[in-house]
């Protein structure tokens, strides 16, 4: 049994799905890392992702094009983040509470819209919903395992990987990234440097909405072409966690997303064995706890370290 588990855990198909499963986390975290770096405690990823799941399906259903679905997904993501921004940045209400409110209503609202528009509960499936098609690269064919892992994915997967590099450059090599990090560390200092703190917070928030919108779209339109109630099922939270543990560094976040992707891939492949599904389903969340624990150990020293 153990041998079988190990064989599956290191199989090519596990790694191939690792990259696909890391993608939704990657989009949200690469777009959202600026928002977190600016000192915004935004927990609304789950809501944004769920809304964009639904609306991307709707966009694809109406138009028959996954690109319109993507546009719908990003649009609703931006819209939800604007609602969050209005509550937190304009009315200065508690961000945690604003996010909890959004997260709790998202499930109800999307289910309601599902019943109204599609007249079904549980799952929306319709042949008019069109997914992105996998892209085949001829030059990869001779690359063996690399080919099996990377070839024949939807375009969004490749975009996600490019995004990591772009996000890194933006974070560490542009005035935008530098100012965002400055705002997160000392808002008043940024103000005295003439940085329009509010403007940067809004931009970063809208980026978060747009890219988490792509995450939602990826969940629905990367092959399965359907919407299920509460579809992200915690992926929004995983996105947020990877940003936090990665300390806003896109490269670190990337590694953590891969780890979460891998643990979700394990859930899929080990599910084929006769193991209790409950235990397998725990893997991603146990991974979170382990990562947090290791991260905490690294920082732990003495009775208390006063961060001034």
């Amino acid at each position, binding site marked *: 049994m153990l041998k079988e588990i190990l064989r599956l855990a290191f199989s090519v198909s596990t790694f191939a799905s690792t990259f696909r499963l890391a993608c939704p986390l990657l989009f949200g975290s690469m777009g959202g890392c600026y928002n977190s770096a600016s000192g915004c405690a935004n927990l609304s990823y789950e809501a944004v992702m769920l809304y964009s799941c639904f609306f991307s399906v709707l966009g694809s259903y109406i138009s028959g094009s996954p690109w319109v679905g993507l546009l719908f997904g990003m649009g609703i993501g931006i819209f939800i983040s604007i609602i969050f921004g209005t509550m937190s940045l304009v009315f200065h209400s508690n961000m945690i509470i604003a996010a909890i409110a959004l997260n709790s209503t998202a499930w109800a609202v999307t289910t309601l819209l599902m019943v109204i528009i599609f007249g079904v509960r549980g799952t929306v499936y319709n042949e008019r919903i069109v997914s992105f098609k996998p892209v085949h690269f001829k030059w990869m064919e001779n690359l063996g395992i690399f080919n099996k892992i990377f070839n024949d994915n939807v375009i969004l997967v490749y975009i996600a990987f490019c995004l990591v590099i772009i996000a890194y*450059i933006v974070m560490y*090599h*542009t*005035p*935008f990234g*530098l*100012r965002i*990090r*400055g705002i997160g*560390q*000392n808002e*008043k*200092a*940024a*103000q*005295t*440097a*003439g*940085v329009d703190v509010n403007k940067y917070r809004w931009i970063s928030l809208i980026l978060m909405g747009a890219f988490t919108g792509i995450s939602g779209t990826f969940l629905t339109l990367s092959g399965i072409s359907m919407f299920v109630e509460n579809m992200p099922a915690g992926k929004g939270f995983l996105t947020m966690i990877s940003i936090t543990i990665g300390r806003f560094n896109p490269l670190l976040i990337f590694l953590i997303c891969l780890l979460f992707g891998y643990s979700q891939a394990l859930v899929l492949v080990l599910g084929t064995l006769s193991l209790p599904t409950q235990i397998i389903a725990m893997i991603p969340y146990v991974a979170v706890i382990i990562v947090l624990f290791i991260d905490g150990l690294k*920082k732990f*020293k*003495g*009775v*208390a*370290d*006063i961060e*001034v």
Partner: protein
Amino acid sequence: MGNSEYILEMRNIRKTFGELVANDNVNLKVRKGTVHSIIGENGAGKSTLMNILTDIHKADSGDILLNGEKVHFKNSLDAARRGIGMIYQEFMLYRDLSVFDNIILGFEKKKWGFIIDRKACRKEIERICSEYSFNIPLDAIVKDLSVAMLQQVEIVKVLYRGADIIIMDEPTSVLTPQGIQGLFRAIRNLVGMGKTIIFISHKLKEVLEISDYITIMNHGRVVAEVLPNEVDEAKLASLMVGRDVILQANKVEPKIGDVLLSVKGLTVKDKDEIVRVKNVDFEIHSGEILGIAGVAGSGQQWIVEALFGLRRPEHGSQIIFDGKDITYVSPREHRLDGIGYVPQDRMGSGVNAKSSLWENSIMGYHIAHGFKNKYLVDTKQANEFTDEIVEQFDVRRQANKDKVAALSGGNIQKMVVGREFLQRNKLLIIEDPTRGIDVGAIEFIWQKIIDLAQEGVAVLLISHELNEVMQLSDTIKVIYNGQLYDGGRHGELTEEEIGLIMLGGNADAK
């Protein structure tokens, strides 16, 4: 442009906050290429005036003229673009960013329209550093640097932003005598190159030394404008406070008792495993004031953190307080045992700026003294204690329920000092008790420290103000590079001799 004798004029500036008149028709004229000091007690309106100049606050009425031309700033950035740079008392730095990033943030040079051109920025900063003789580590992370170094970073930062008028708010409050001389050299250098410095300070000796012109403010008004050669310290102090003050501690013969605190082989590492305190031994008797002098960042902070249980000392260290081993006990137990603590960084560890004055006043007090009711906060008792602090330490506030953030730095310091001094502690650990407060209050706090010692309280005084350590301490120790050296008894060594040990000049004479 340039046809005026004054680079900066502020005319009839008036600013009110509610009922409080912070600036009452203030006039200020600053000549180009001079050091112009503005002095006054806490709450005299200096900071407000400067905040108006840098457009943090808008004046209710009045005009600002630059080079004889009336200007209206749209925002602080606009003021910075017009060449007004401010160095705040609480540095405006980002602690996890590099020095380089701190300097360029907000004023980045770009290539290809969106990428930071680090090379061009670095060239510009290096040009400024060599032109004005600054030597700062551009790639170091800000949190790893000493206060004196951070101040240089701040100066380079405003120069990088193109400042012609540099406002320095209490710049010497955290520096050693050598550091202050270094700063003064830098200031003279800057002035020599045509920059104008507005120097805000409480320290009259320094003001007399560095200034070309002195403006004295009291209660929101300008009360006098003098030249430094017309006045002396006593005259300035009386103009500032409105009465005569003595700048000498009233030191009396100490009543030294038994050993209260005994520290043996104290070694402390920071979180990066770097040894910050090496094998330090000392004893404090009840009734004794033991002063530790030293350049900022020599290890003072780590000694204090270890003594108060905020950081675990290394194996082999031993701290005995009143016959009890307290090497590894929590700060809470230190409070219960009767150890009080006035931290150096009042905003970071001294108060919670977002909560009210009364809540801050009872922090620590509630542990050591409790309330009549075990489970509920007794607001009456809390307010009584707050009022006691406010009254005895002259904290200027509107109501006990005001947020601490609304008070000025000096008033917050008085509140923190008052909170620790009014509890019945056996040992007080005091770091920079008079940082950023005015002469009248310094005189008062010094007297309080001496009175406490007379009552039998042991005092560990750690100050970056060498004069303070020398005036107050019965026993003087000097810290250099994590090791403690003997600085003699009260009055045994001169300021220069101790200054030399602070710089490691006496490292083998332990």
